[in-house]
Structures are given as C-alpha cells and as structure tokens.
C-alpha cells in the first residue's frame, strides 16, 4: 500500500524536477530574448514576429519529430529527458518573452535616460533596471507557463510510453498511464490526487511567495479600478498566452486603461507589398513541387484528408465549448458575486492536464459506439475550454464599473442586455481565447489520436480514430517516413497561420477601432 504511494511520490517528483529545470531555463531564455528584443530595434523586427507565430502554433504536433531528432543525437535516458524538457520549454517560453518585452517597453522613458545620465554599463542596466522591471511580469507569466507546461509534461511522458526506445523512466504521466492500462483504478485515482496536491502546493509554496516578493515594487499595481483585486488574482493564469496575432507596435504607444482589447492583439503597420509577393511565389513553388512528384502528390492528398477530419473534430468541439463557456462567462461577469472564488477553483481544475484523464476517459467510453470519436471529443473539449473561459473572464477587468450602473439604471435586462451588452463585452476575450483555445485543441488532437492509435504500453489498441493529422504523424514516425512527417507539419503550420490571419485577425481588426 505505502509502497506504491511512495513510488507515485517519487515519480511525481521526477516530473516536477523536469518542470523546474524547464522553467528555470525558460526564464533565463525569456529574459535574454525579451530584453534583446526590447532594446534593439533590429532584433525586435525579427524576434517578435517569430515568437508571435510560435506561440500560436500547437507545438505538440512537432513532438514526434523533435523526439526523433534529439534521441537520434543523444541516445538513452539523457536524450529522452532532454527532449521532454525541450518540449516543455517550447510551451513555457513565448509568453515569458512577451512579458519581459512588454515590461521594458512600458518602462517610463526617464528610466532609460537615467541610465544614460549615470553612464550605466550593460551589466548595471541589466541588474538595476531591465531585470527588476521584468520580474513581476515574469512571475505572473510563469504561473501561466507552469499550467501549460504541465500539459506538455504529462503528454510527452505519455507519448514516451508508446515505445521502449523513447520511454521516460520516472514520471507521473508514465506511472498513471501504466496504472490505467493495467486496470489499477484505485491507484490511478490516488495518482491523480497526488498530482493535484502537487499542483496546489507548488502554487502556494512556490509561486505565491515569489509573486508577492517581486510585486512589492510593481508600478502597475498602482491602479485605481475596483477590479484591481480581481485583476491581481487573474493575472497569473488568466492572461493565458494571449495571442499576439500581430505584434506590439500597438501595445506600446496606446493607453491600456480603458478597453484595450484584451490588450495584446494589435495591428501591424501595412508593409505587405513584398511579403505578399514572396508568399505567392512560395505557394506556387510548393504546389509545383507537389504536382510534379507522384509520391508527394499522394502524400499531400492523404494529409489534406487527415487535416480535414481533424479540423472537423476541432471546430465541432469549439462550437460546443462556446455553447458552454459563453453563458457561463456572462453569468460570472455580470451576475456572480463570487467570481474570484470561481476563478481560483477553475485555475486548479485547469491545471490538471486533460491528457492525464485520458485513460479514465477511454475506459468510460470504450463500450459505446463511436467511442474513439467520443474520446477525441472529450479531450479536445477539456483542453480548449479553459483558455476560452479565462480569456473571456479577463475581460471583466476592462469593463468599467459605470457600465454595470448603466445596465441597472436604465433597466437593461434579458435578451435586450444580451444584444446590447453581454455579447459585446466578452467578444474581445472570446477572440483571443479562441486562438489559444483552438491551438490547445490541436495539441490535444495530436495526443488523443496518437494515444488512441498506438496502443500504449503492451501494444493493446484501446480505441482508435480512423483518420486524422495526429494519427498520420504517428504513423509516419513509426515508419520513419520523414518526408511525409515534414510535409504534414508544413501543411499544418500553414493552415494554422492562414486561419489566424483570415479569421481571427480580421475579426479583431474589425472591432479594434470601436473598443479602444
């Protein structure tokens, strides 16, 4: 009895060790890259757009590829751990970079002048100005990174169990998967409880004191809105990877006090001319290459079909997520008196990765018709919904008290209130949440399809979707077909970027002028 609990504690500690290593590296990298981007115009032009794209890409799709490359380079235990840590970093880093970048860009110009007047060197500027100024946001973003990182951690550990070559020895993800597969459900539940306890303890014992410490001098705390308590509470995880669909030339100059559209998404000055030409040429080359080669052409066809199947699942789940999350968010923002309590509860639930529940979900659905689709759907839903809810709830901070008073004063109720107030109040959050939520769904799709298709553990296929991009990537890894894998990733990346530009960014541009 105590033996397996001890074993689970050891496994969880190993997982947490990976997380702390990844977080430490992410903070170091984030400070370095963020400060560089914020202080050099040339670096800014290159770094920011790239980070922007990277943070909306569902990077898990690249996991099979990354693991293949890294394990090939560094075989054995070290290689696989390096791959896992690398992957966690790819989930943690981007928002930290933006946190640092924005902190420095928002510094009063006098600080920079001060540094010049006193002739500070680089070392002094870093230690006296840039790093202290960035730390409050770095800590805020870190709690968020942690939650996203947990998802990647567990997922990549689960991934690793599918094959002896890529197996991580100790890890809570591995342990839980094996417990579930061997039918030890009571132990599996104990494992999940231990995981949750670790999540809560990390928050209370690690992040809370650090945040308090670094926020002591935080200038942005001097705000006057009544929402302050709320904002403060939400800050850590609510500003979930707010997608910068386009980058912050915007975030800088503009005031944030009123309706900054969830404030991070902005408009890029129009320097499209050449870029469009280059895109068009690349597209022509791409099509030409595919049409001219029979194998590539057949690959492309199967990729498109797989993408379409996954796309349908992801967007169906998104529609259901909206049906749940919109009324819930409106209720919490406009009617509930216990918003902050709910937020805290949600934060804890949200930091339990949907993938850890996968074995449980599979066993729930396994006897039903269409069970593989039901499993996929549940995992998508659980992965995407929190981003969207948190993003909408974070809009609360931008709704001035007077709007609630207007509603009360003029007796705006029911359908009328939905049409005139609620929908509009949450739309900016909805859009930003949708970008990240759908990216999270895509991540989940890779895992769900992979998990269900590759018969984790003893090779027992539990349930398997018949077609999808995750399954395709998995098959190509199994067969060592790098061409198919790279082509699939390319298609996938293009699709994500195109949807972000054509759908979300357009929607955003349309409302941006009105809200600002």
């Amino acid at each position, binding site marked *: 009895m105590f033996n397996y609990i001890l074993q689970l504690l050891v496994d969880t500690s190993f997982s947490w060790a990976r997380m702390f290593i990844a977080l430490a590296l992410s903070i170091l990298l984030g400070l370095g890259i963020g400060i560089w981007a914020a202080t050099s115009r040339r670096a800014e032009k290159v770094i920011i757009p790239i980070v922007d794209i990277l943070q909306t890409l569902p990077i898990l799709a690249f996991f099979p590829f990354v693991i293949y490359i890294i394990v090939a380079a560094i075989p054995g235990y070290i290689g696989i751990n390096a791959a896992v840590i690398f992957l966690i970093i790819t989930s943690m880093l981007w928002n930290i970079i933006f946190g640092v970048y924005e902190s420095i860009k928002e510094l009063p110009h006098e600080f920079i002048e001060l540094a010049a007047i006193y002739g500070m060197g680089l070392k002094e500027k870093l230690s006296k100005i840039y790093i202290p100024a960035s730390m409050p946001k770095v800590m805020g973003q870190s709690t968020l990174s942690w939650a996203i990182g947990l998802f990647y951690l567990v997922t990549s550990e689960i991934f690793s169990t599918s094959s002896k070559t890529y197996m991580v020895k100790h890890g809570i993800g591995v342990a839980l998967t094996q417990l579930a597969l061997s039918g030890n459900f009571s132990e599996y539940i104990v494992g999940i409880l231990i995981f949750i306890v670790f999540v809560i303890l990390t928050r209370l014992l690690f992040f809370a004191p650090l945040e308090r410490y670094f926020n002591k001098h935080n200038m942005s705390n001097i705000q006057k809105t009544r929402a302050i308590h709320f904002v403060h509470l939400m800050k850590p995880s609510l500003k979930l990877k707010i997608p910068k669909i386009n980058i912050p030339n915007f975030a800088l100059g503009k005031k944030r006090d*009123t*309706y900054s559209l969830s404030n991070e998404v902005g408009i890029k000055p129009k320097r499209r001319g050449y870029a469009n030409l280059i895109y068009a040429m690349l597209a022509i080359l791409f099509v030409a290459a595919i049409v001219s080669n029979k194998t590539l052409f057949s690959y492309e066809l199967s990729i498109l079909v797989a993408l379409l199947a996954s796309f349908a699942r992801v967007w169906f789940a998104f529609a259901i997520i909206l049906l749940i999350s919109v009324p819930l968010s409106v209720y919490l923002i406009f009617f509930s008196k216990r918003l902050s309590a709910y937020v805290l509860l949600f934060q804890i639930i949200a930091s339990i990765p949907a993938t850890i529940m996968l074995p449980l979900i599979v066993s729930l659905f396994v006897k039903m018709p269409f069970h593989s689709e039901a499993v996929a759907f549940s995992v998508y839903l659980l992965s995407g919904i929190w981003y969207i809810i948190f993003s909408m709830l974070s809009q609360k901070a931008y709704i*001035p008290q*007077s*709007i609630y*008073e*207007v509603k*009360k*004063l*003029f*007796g*705006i*109720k029911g359908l*009328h209130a939905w049409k*005139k*107030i609620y929908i*509009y*109040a949450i*739309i900016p959050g909805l859009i930003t949440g949708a970008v990240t939520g759908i990216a999270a769904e895509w991540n989940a799709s890779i895992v769900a399809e992979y998990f269900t298709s590759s018969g984790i553990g003893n090779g027992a296929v539990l349930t398997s979707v018949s077609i999808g991009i995750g399954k395709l990537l998995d098959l190509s890894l199994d067969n060592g077909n790098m061409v198919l894998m790279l082509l699939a990733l390319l298609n996938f990346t293009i699709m994500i970027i195109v949807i972000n530009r054509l759908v979300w960014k357009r929607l955003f541009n349309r*409302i941006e*002028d*009105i*809200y*600002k």
Partner: protein
Amino acid sequence: MDLLNVENIGYSIGPVHVIENITFTAMKDEFVSIIGPSGCGKSTLLRIIAGLIKPLHGKVLYNGMLVEKPNRDISFVFQDFALLPWLTNIENVKLGLSLFDISEEEKERKAKLLFKKMGLEGFEKAYPNMLSGGMKQRVGLARAIISDPKVLLMDEPFSSLDELTAEALRSDVINMLRSPDIPVSLVIMVTHNVEEAVELSNKVVILSERPSHVKEIKRIELKYPRNKRSKGFMREVDHIYKVLTE
C-alpha cells in the same frame, strides 16, 4: 413641497466609514451642487440617491416615496460618460428608453430629435470613441434626458473635459435645462470645482472630509447667467472655500 429628501444617510466600505450622516432636501426648479474634498463619498451619495447603491442607514424619498432601486423619473450622467463603446451613439442614447414600452421607431424618432437639439446631428451612426470628450458627454446627457426624467443626477459631469470644453458645455447645459420642452425640474450635481458650483447652482451642499457630514447648505441667489468676475460671485466662491478648508 420637497421633491427629494435625503435623510440621515450613512455608508461605509468595509471598515472605512465614508459617509457619517447626511441630510438635505431639494425642491422643484432647484439646481443643487454637492461639493466636498476628494474621498468624502460625494459620488457614492449620488449613487445612493439614484438607487444604485443601498445606504448603510437612512433613506432617500422622491415625492415622498422611498427610493430603493433606479427609478424612471431619476436619471444619471456619469463622469466617465459610460457610453458603451460597441454601440453607435444613437444606440447608446436609445438605451435610456430601455425601461419604456415604446416602439423602436418612436425611440429612433425621439433620439434623432435630441441629437439635433444637442448639436450632435450627423454623429448618430458614429461610435463613441470617434468623438471628443465634450461630444461624448453630450451623448451621455442625451441618454440621460431622452426618457424625460424629472430629476437629473450628474456625477462630476465636466471634470473629464478640458477647461474650455467644460466652459462651453456648462453654458449649453444651463440653457438646455431652462428650455421649456425639457421637463427636468431638479438637478443634483456632484463637483469638486467651487466656481462650477457657484456658476450653476442655487443651492450648494458643502460636505466635510471623511467620514462626511453636511458642513453648510449655502443658497446662491445670483441671477443667471452669472458673471464669474462679479463681486457677488467672488464673494460666494470665497465663502465656500473658507467653509471647505476650515
């Protein structure tokens, strides 16, 4: 007869005692200013009068009836305008008629008329953020008076504007409120600007620091429009300053 009675109002936020005990009355055709140092709960008091906030103790009577929630006859103008940024200006103004059971066409007609009267013609379909502060507050005013309220409450309505704009809007407001087709018969305005209070009102309620009570209720008998450089005007201003600071 008194149109509005404010009786023994008290209010606290958590442990902080904001309003100690405030009592005053207001009659038909009065313009009452409430003035006091910042943090003394002026805006809170106005919201209590509007029925937006419940007081800790005391009551507000309108026409002898208890005000416990917002009331059709009492309207409100906000310091930060409180226009919904996602609705056009005319949609914002029509919100003022939400409680009224009249057709959409009738609302549209009334709103258009008001836009004309308030010098807002041509801005109906624009969004609030395309307007200057002065124009925004005109929209805010239009929303407040479209329902023909008897009592108009204004929470520092000019303090978000630059001085020149505020000056112009103040005189427009006075003229508008005196015109016979506007049925507003009582205005209560919160302000921290002594000159503004003397320029506009015929009764000034001077509040103390927190926890606030009424220091003095000063009647101002000067004729409208008031000349800010006149001796009488200066005397009133000096008097209020003295009461505020003593």
